[in-house]
């Protein structure tokens, strides 16, 4: 009945404010797959009473990895934990990406800190052509790309400020290169996701998108992370975070 404890095996800065943790927990590692998340307690006092949902970057043997960006009180506290410390982590939670051996050509699109679940998917899904589109604000925020190269056939990179790769948004680069994909996996800022989802739908290309919403319990009980879908109100933590592109970003089209 003990809460799941995950031991920090390794801690590494990926950029000036993105921290990668390698964590040890056999159960979480064993049940993880691309697109799922863990809900992490960030401080041991009761000042912060909500866990922080963080997507899983990778999992193997009895270890799994997460990356978080230090951007608020919770992640600031989380950044204090060091190698050897025990974190209180619930998970894995939610429904992730699905893959089929019938796919011949797939694309992965990640924007900013949305790249983690799609990087995981690109590493895990095998047996087809894999194109990866990664967008960052600037050169300094680029991460994980070197190790990703060996897992994909094409890696397309953009920066909003043009400091590396294609100058501009990854959405525009994707529109240029878009071809007859059997499946597209997406995670990034909501504006990016909406634009890509609508373009794919128009072109009758299948896709799965990981949504973000503020969460409470993370397990589907408190109902705060609501989103409108074609099947009615659904909850990102339990019904998602990964949804079929047919079902979300539906407001303006009806």
């Amino acid at each position: 009945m003990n809460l799941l404890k995950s031991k920090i095996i390794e801690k590494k800065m990926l950029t000036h404010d993105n921290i990668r943790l390698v964590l040890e927990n056999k159960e979480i590692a064993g049940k993880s797959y691309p697109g799922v998340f863990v809900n992490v307690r960030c401080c041991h006092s009761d000042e912060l009473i909500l866990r922080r949902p963080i997507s899983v970057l990778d999992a193997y043997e009895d270890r799994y990895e997460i990356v978080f960006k230090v951007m608020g009180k919770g992640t600031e506290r989380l950044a204090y934990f060091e190698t050897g410390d025990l974190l209180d982590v619930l998970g894995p939670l939610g429904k992730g990406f699905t893959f089929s051996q019938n796919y011949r050509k797939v694309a992965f699109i990640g924007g900013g800190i949305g790249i983690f679940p799609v990087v995981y998917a690109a590493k895990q899904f095998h047996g087809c052509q894999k194109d990866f589109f990664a967008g960052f604000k600037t050169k300094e925020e680029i991460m994980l790309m070197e190790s990703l190269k060996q897992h994909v056939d094409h890696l397309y990179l953009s920066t909003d400020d043009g400091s590396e790769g294609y100058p501009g948004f990854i959405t525009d680069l994707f529109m240029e290169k878009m071809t007859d994909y059997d499946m597209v996996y997406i995670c990034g800022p909501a504006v990016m996701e909406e634009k890509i989802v609508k373009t794919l739908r128009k072109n009758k290309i299948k896709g799965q998108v990981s949504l973000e919403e503020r969460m409470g319990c993370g397990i589907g009980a408190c109902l705060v992370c609501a989103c409108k879908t074609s099947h009615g109100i659904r909850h990102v933590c339990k019904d998602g975070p990964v949804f079929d592109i047919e079902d979300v970003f539906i407001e303006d089209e009806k």
Partner: protein
Amino acid sequence: MKHVNTSVNIAGVTFSNPVIAASGTYGFGREYGNYVDLNKLGGISVKGLTLLPREGNMPPRIAETPSGMLNSVGLENPGVERFISDEIPFLSQYDLKTIVNVAGNSIEDYVNMTLKLNETSVDMLEINLSCPNVKHGCVSFGVSEQGVYEVTKAVKEVSKKPVIIKLTPNVTSIASIAYKAQDAGADGVSLINTITGMKINVKTRRPVLYNNTGGLSGPAIRPIAVRMVHEVYQAIDIPIIGMGGITCLSDALEFIIAGASAVMIGTYNFMNPYLCEQIVIDLIDYMKHNNIDNIKEMVGSLRLNG
């Protein structure tokens, strides 16, 4: 090993222990069944139900605040009919008592829902006169003595189930409101619901919640809740179920000592989904170590200073 009696009787319903999951934080129990043995809980108060299904408010519906959180879910629920067909069969498998949180737009809504629930196996009704996140009904009745009296009276006239009234703290005197509920025939009261609050994003100068305001819950409100249970205990004779920011057994005992016959555990389940069962285990240990044979000995055992 010595046997201790944790059971409590509230309005004729015997709970195996005084630990009940609070409405709105535990869904219909299904999700938490993966973490706790639901049989170990005294009861569950299910997500607030309305006569017809409701989609709830637009997100963001949650904002974290110091030692607490604001929510504005807005009573998203499948409606009372689907609760009866889909959820009661699930909950009936367990030993825990089922309390149905009933939220209405009008007195007729409360009455109609009560009539539907009369014919089911649920154990108790918790009349929600306190949800702050809907435009009509609920708290608009709960903030006036007359509103509380009228709804309570109307429900009691038709109900075959014991009826407790869930009170809002957003009033001048919660003791007077509780007294009116008792006067109208309520079998008990539960308190407190959330305290209305607001969080502003300074960059955008907009409230963080889409609904602008929300209900504050969590440890931040616990001292207020304990004080209110204490005041209400002095004002009425019917049983009290206390809640507000309980995170551990010690917090729960504060409410019981102040006068609550049972407690509800809410927001902190999000941090610790094992919490309800843990508090039951800790309570039994505590009673054994402190030679308390029966939990009733502790109810209202507060000794005031001076």
